[in-house]
C-alpha cells in the first residue's frame, strides 16, 4: 500500500538518495586506491569519483584533511536531503542526527572534564549533531546542572531521565551516561520507526536490532575487568534486539569472552563474529566483523522501494566509506602497505 502514496511526498528525495548511493565507491575504485603510493595518488583516484571537485584546490594533503573533506561532502548531501524532506521523513532524519548529538554531548563533557579548550572541542564535534546551545555544555559540572541549563531544550531531553541519578561527572559516569542515553535513543528510534509499518518498520527493525545487539556485546566485552557491576551492566543493555531478553540476561552474567561467544552461538548471523577471531587474531577484529555485517544489512535495504530505511542506510554506508578512505590513506602515509586490505568493501 505504501507504494500508492509514498512518492507524493518522498519519491523525489528517495530517487536522489539512490543517485547518491550509486556514487559510493565500488570494488574497482578500492583496488585502485590500494595501489596508490602517495596521498597525491589517492587524490587523483578520488578525483575520478564523486569526490572529484572537492579535493581540487587542496595543495597540502593529510589524512585528517581528507577525512574532513569527505565528511563535509556527506554533511552537505545529508543537509540537501533534510531540506527536501517533509513531515514524517523529516522527523525520521532528525532521529538519525540524535545519535551524533549524543556523541557531541559526551565529547564536550569529557573534554571539559580534562580541561580542554572549548573552541577546539567544538571544532571536533560531528557536524550532523550540532545544536544551538552546545557551547554552554562546557560550563556544567554535574548532571542536574547539565540537564537544567542546556539539554532540557534539546530533543535529547527525554533520554536523560534515566541518567539524572548520577551525581558527579567522572570518567566512569560519563561512560554510563553515554550508554544510558544511547539505550534510550535506540529504543525510542526503534518504536518510532515501527510506527510507520510496512517495509520501513521491517528493515529498520533489523538494522536497529543489530545496532542494539552490537552495543550490548561491546558493553559486555569492554566491562570485563572494570569496576562496573553486573547489575549496572544489565541496565545499559537496550531492551530491543535479537539478544533481548534472554541473550542480554546471559551477557549480564558473563565473566569472559567465551561466555559471550556461547550466548551468540545460538544466532546464526552472530555466530560468525566470534568464529576464529581468537585463533587467527591478526586477520580481523570483532569490530571489523560488526562493521562488515552492518554494511551487509545496509546494502540489503536498497533492495526495496518506498521506505525510509534507505536514508538511514545511506548515511551508514557513507560513513563506512569515509572510514575506508581514512584507513587506506592512513596505511599509505604510514607505509603500512601490508595491512591496507583490511578495509570493508561496500559494493
Amino acid at each position, binding site marked *: 500500500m505504501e*507504494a500508492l502514496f509514498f*512518492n507524493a511526498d518522498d*519519491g*523525489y528525495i528517495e*530517487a536522489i538518495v539512490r543517485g547518491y548511493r550509486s*556514487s559510493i565507491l565500488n570494488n574497482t575504485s578500492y583496488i585502485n586506491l590500494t595501489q596508490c603510493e602517495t596521498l597525491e595518488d589517492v587524490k587523483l583516484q578520488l578525483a575520478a569519483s564523486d569526490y572529484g571537485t572537492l579535493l581540487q584546490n587542496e595543495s597540502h594533503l593529510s589524512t585528517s584533511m581528507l577525512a574532513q573533506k569527505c565528511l563535509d561532502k556527506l554533511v552537505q548531501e545529508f543537509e540537501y536531503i533534510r531540506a527536501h524532506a517533509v513531515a514524517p521523513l523529516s522527523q525520521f532524519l532528525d532521529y538519525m542526527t540524535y545519535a551524533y548529538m549524543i556523541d557531541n554531548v559526551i565529547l564536550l563533557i569529557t573534554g571539559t572534564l580534562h580541561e580542554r579548550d572549548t573552541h577546539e572541542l567544538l571544532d571536533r564535534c560531528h557536524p550532523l549533531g550540532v545544536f544551538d546551545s552546545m557551547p554552554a555544555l562546557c560550563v556544567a559540572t554535574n548532571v542536574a546542572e547539565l540537564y537544567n541549563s542546556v539539554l532540557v531544550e534539546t530533543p535529547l531531553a527525554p533520554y536523560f531521565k534515566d541518567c539524572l541519578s548520577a551525581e558527579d561527572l567522572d570518567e566512569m559516569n560519563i561512560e554510563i551516561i553515554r550508554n544510558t542515553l544511547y539505550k534510550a535513543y535506540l529504543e525510542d528510534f526503534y518504536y*518510532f520507526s515501527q510506527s510507520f509499518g510496512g517495509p520501513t518498520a521491517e528493515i529498520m527493525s533489523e538494522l536497529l536490532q543489530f545496532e542494539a545487539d552490537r552495543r550490548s556485546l561491546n558493553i559486555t566485552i569492554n566491562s570485563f575487568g572494570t569496576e562496573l557491576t553486573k547489575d549496572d551492566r544489565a541496565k545499559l543493555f537496550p531492551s530491543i534486539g535479537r539478544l533481548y531478553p534472554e541473550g542480554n540476561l546471559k551477557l549480564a552474567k558473563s565473566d569472559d569472552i567465551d561466555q559471550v561467544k556461547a550466548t551468540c552461538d545460538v544466532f546464526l548471523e552472530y555466530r560468525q563474529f566470534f568464529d576464529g577471531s581468537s585463533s587467527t587474531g591478526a586477520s580481523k577484529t570483532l569490530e571489523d566483523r560488526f562493521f562488515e555485517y552492518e554494511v551487509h544489512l545496509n546494502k540489503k535495504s536498497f533492495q526495496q522501494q518506498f521506505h525510509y530505511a534507505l536514508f538511514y542506510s545511506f548515511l551508514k554506508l557513507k560513513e563506512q566509506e569515509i572510514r575506508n578512505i581514512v584507513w587506506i590513506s592512513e596505511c599509505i602515509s604510514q607505509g603500512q602497505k601490508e595491512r591496507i586490505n583490511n578495509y570493508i568493501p561496500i559494493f
Partner: protein
Amino acid sequence: MGAYSTRDSSYGGTSPMALYSYLTLTGLGLVGLYMLLTGSGEQFNVGEFIMSISPHQWSLMGIALCVGLSVAGAAWGIFITGASLVGAGVHAPRIVTKNLISIIFCEVVAIYGLIMAIVFSAKLKDVQDATITSSEMYYKGFALFWAGLTTGLCNLVCGVSVGITGSSAALADAQDGQLFVKVLVIEIFGSIVGLFGLIVGLLVSGKVA
C-alpha cells in the same frame, strides 16, 4: 521480532477514522431500527430506488465514471513515476528521455478511458417520455453504467500498477542501464491489464442498440 509489542499502542490508539465509522454505523442502525419498528420498513426499498432513477442518468454516470476513473489512474501513475524519474535523473541524466515511455504507458490508460467514453456517448440518444421506462431503455442504461464502471476501475488499477513499475524502472535504469528493457517488459504486461477492462466494456455495451 516480537519484543516490541510493549509500546506499540502508545503511537496508535483509537484513530479518528475508526471513530467515524462506528458513529456512522450506529446512526444508520438507529434509523433502520426506527423505520422497522414503526412499520415503515417498506420505505427502505433498494430495487425501487434503482428503478426510479432515469436510464439516462445511469448511462451518463457510466460515461463519467469511465473517463473519470481512467484519468485518475493515469494521473496517479504519472505522479508515482514522475517523482522518481526527476529524482533519479539528477544523478543520471541519460535516463530521463528513455523513461518518458513509462509516462506514455500511464497516459495510454487515460486514452483507453477516453475512447470508451466516446463509444458510449455515441449510443446516447434522446427519447420521448413514454418510452423511457421500457425494458430496452433500462437495459441500455444499466449496460452503459456497468461497462463504464468496469473500464474505469480496470484502468484505475492498471494506471497505478504501471506507475509503480515505471518508478522502479527509472530507479533501476539509473543504477544499471541494462535493467531498463527487463523492467520495461514487466511494465508492458502491467499496461495490458487495462486492455482487459476495455474489451469487457466493449462487449457489455456492444449489445446496446
